[in-house]
């Protein structure tokens, strides 16, 4: 079986009117297996979102390759997207659809066979506890309710690969914890999950392996225990700061 997510030497350079060339991602490589949560931990502007967008085929890499379930992001973007669910704080729901219509739409459009759609939607409504407001329009729902619908829509077609880009941004503690719980459940179901965050505790709690991203590069990539052993620090926060400063010292020229 092919590795669910495989990223090799991926780079992305933006050209910005004001800043000129922006190297958002530089030669990033990692893999993520089924039943694993792989964390991208980095500060603002580290290049997490850019990496994940390339995986979701919204952006094209400047160089390097990435594949999802053996499909290359450049060669077969549609096949890649059929295999993944993508959720981020910027992917919104259609305000004028009801929760049920939303799930129905995303299941169909992602290639769920038409005769299975109804059963799948019913299952999702049941599982995420959306039943009470399934026929209300999304724009009338509270933030927490929306969050549940968004999670259900991400897995509407039961994809083997899930990508979460800072999913807990803007949620209160209860909802954030709920979200972490659900993501852990997805792992138990055997999905390959990439999870990006800038919150140390979240990464510590949830991720099987953590990549520390700084200015577009991965500076360390291991299990928490491995990172601790390598740096001699216990807290992830200190581990992060240590590898970030070490990186800055190593390549002072890079912006």
């Amino acid at each position, binding site marked *: 079986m092919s590795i669910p997510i495989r990223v090799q030497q991926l780079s992305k*350079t*933006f*050209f*910005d*009117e004001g800043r000129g060339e922006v190297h958002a991602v530089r030669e990033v490589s990692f893999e993520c297996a089924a039943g694993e949560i792989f964390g991208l931990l980095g500060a603002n502007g580290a290049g997490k979102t850019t990496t994940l*967008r390339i995986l*979701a*085929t*919204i*952006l*094209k890499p*400047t160089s390097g390759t990435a594949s999802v379930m053996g499909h290359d992001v450049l060669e077969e*973007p*549609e096949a890649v*997207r*059929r295999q*993944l669910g*993508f959720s*981020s704080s*910027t*992917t*919104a*729901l*259609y*305000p*004028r*659809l009801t929760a049920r*219509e939303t799930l129905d*739409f*995303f299941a*169909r*459009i*992602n*290639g769920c066979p*038409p005769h299975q759609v109804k059963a799948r939607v019913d299952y999702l409504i049941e599982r995420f506890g959306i039943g009470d407001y399934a026929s209300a*329009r999304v724009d009338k729902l509270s933030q927490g309710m929306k969050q549940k619908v968004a999670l259900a*829509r991400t897995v509407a*077609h039961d994809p083997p690969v899930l990508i979460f880009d800072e999913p807990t941004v803007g949620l209160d503690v209860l909802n954030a914890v709920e979200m972490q719980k659900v993501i852990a459940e997805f792992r138990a179901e055997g999905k390959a999950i990439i999870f990006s965050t800038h919150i140390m505790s979240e990464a510590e709690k949830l991720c099987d392996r953590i990549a520390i991203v700084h200015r577009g590069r991965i500076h360390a990539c291991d299990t928490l225990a491995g990172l601790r052993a390598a740096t001699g620090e216990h807290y992830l926060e200190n581990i992060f700061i240590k590898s970030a400063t070490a990186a800055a010292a190593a390549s002072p020229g890079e912006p």
Partner: protein
Amino acid sequence: MNLDPRIIGVLLATELRMIFRDRRILFTSILLPILLTPFLILISHRSIRHYEQTLKTSEHPYAVAGERTNEVRALLAQVHERLKTNQQAFKFNEKTVTDAMTSLVKDEVHFVVRGFTGGQPRATNPPAAKGVPGPVDKPEGEAEVAGALVVELVFRGDRDYSAFAAGSMADALGESRRLLRSQALVQHGFPVQVKQMAVVENREIAQPKAVAGLRLGMMLTMFLFIFIMMGGAMVAADSIAGEKERGTLETLLTTAASRLEILTAKQLSILVMAALITLIQVGNLLAFVAFKGFPGMGEMSGVLSPGIVVLLIFLCLPMAALACSALLLVSGWAKSYKEAQMYLMPMMLLGIVPALAPMLPGASLRSVLVLVPMANLAIGVRDVLTRQFDWPMLVLAWVITVGAAAWVMRWSARFLLTERMITAADRDDVEAKGGLPLFQRQVWRWFALIWASLLIVSGFSEKCDLRVQLFINLVLIFFGFCCLILRYYHLPVREALALRAPRPLVWLGVLIAVPAGFICALGAFQVANLFLPAPQAMVEQLSQSVFPAHIPAWQILLGISVMPGIFEEITFRGVLLHGLHRKLHPAVLVVVVGLVFGIFHVALFRFVPTAALGMMLAAVTLLTGSIFPAMLWHALSNALGVLAYKWQIPENGLDPSIYLLGLGLLAAAFWIFWRQRTPYPGLRPWRRQCPPG
């Protein structure tokens, strides 16, 4: 990219569901247009009045016929004399023709004035020529008086200028008659039977149906366009720009639906809304007709037979598609809903201009207008409604507008692909880096610009000396733009223009190819002539303007052979070919470069031979990787054309065996090119290469 109808169906259904839940859209797209229609009708009435004004100020040719032409001419001379002082008055002048009625049918004159002797039998029927509707009853008018001059005005009611000119002439003649009467009274001192002087009567040879068709035809496209804009604009703004703003576009783009499916569904949703609006508005319009009675709309039912309606729908579809694609493009371009709305208003005003083309007096499909998308079909719709079926031109117009719609759609697809869709970047890497990749993307824009410049400049330089014209076109426009492009994209000149030495034997091939290619292009012209007869008058006029007698032969050879050989080759086989060579498969590349070359030789009947020559030149450039053989070939071929004209070699009706010989020689020349080939670098492979393993 795949297009799954089921996915498109799901997308479209959801899109429509959301549209109908948006009060903002329902108000602006459905309610507002219904309220605005009466206002629009008022405006269109006004613009028709303006158009009549235009007719009044142009000069109308006419012919004189009948038995008493001298008296008619005398009468007309009086009218002329009287109107001369009046600047505002209707202008007309006589044209001598062999057969007045045939000329009327051929549109050479706007009306015919016939003089008869009253009370005597005469041929009332116009000749049963093609295109002229059957006889019309003599209108009730003044009784004829035996022996007196009867002036009959013959015109075509399905031609705006014809009907107008005849009407004005009738008025002018009537006025003159009144003056004559008072003069006669004064001179003779006793009453004269006025009616013995002249009786003026009007005869229209078009059926009322055609007249109603003309009225409808002039407005139909404009109404269609306005309805599409009204119905589609909000939907379009909401559909990409709105989604971008709300953040749902990123969600949509991460689903398995392909970009093309998304775009198609969005396009269809705009079309559905536009169709809905059009239906509502047609109902609205019919209600108006029923209540108030539109002038001349009574015969509408006669105009619209089922066959015509189907044809009209067929003609309107590409226009609708083009308008919707343009709307979508604007929406993709804008970053937010507000921004999209801001662009849509000026676009609507701009877009309506081509839809007004049928209102231009005398606008016809057999002119450059056939190359203007939207305008060409608008004229086509008018022609169909007046029962003029110019099939080859209708097909050409249709194809051009469909092509434009497809092109705009592809353009908007690119907006979904580029990064500016969801991120803040304004330019993607191709745009920032420039060079050949960017030129490849923008090559069509440049050539559209060059084409437009040629067209505009030729409008001014028409009256100049041939040498000045050639200098402007070849050096200033062609060469000037080429230099500009080379500089702008920093293209290496040697590569961009393929300035490489070919193998020596290639020159021999060129020498064989010149006469062979010339004969083959003539053959292509003959074949094309079967489908699209070139007007003989135009051919003659062209040769006159190309070879005026007073210019020395060497200058003609320089201007017609050497200079085009250099500058046109630099433009088409140099810059254009370079801009396209990585984008298109070599075979397609040859055809496209040839077609563009043909289009640039504006006159329609020259299209086929020049396109044929253009393809051969592109092929030889690709095979030899050098522009020089094409330059030599082009120059010699043009020189051959000049000589053929000088020696009066008949260009048509050559013996079939000669064409065969030409074809054979051409094949031989290309065999040489093939054997001696040093292909153009960087071309796409002929076949898709299989990945190794």
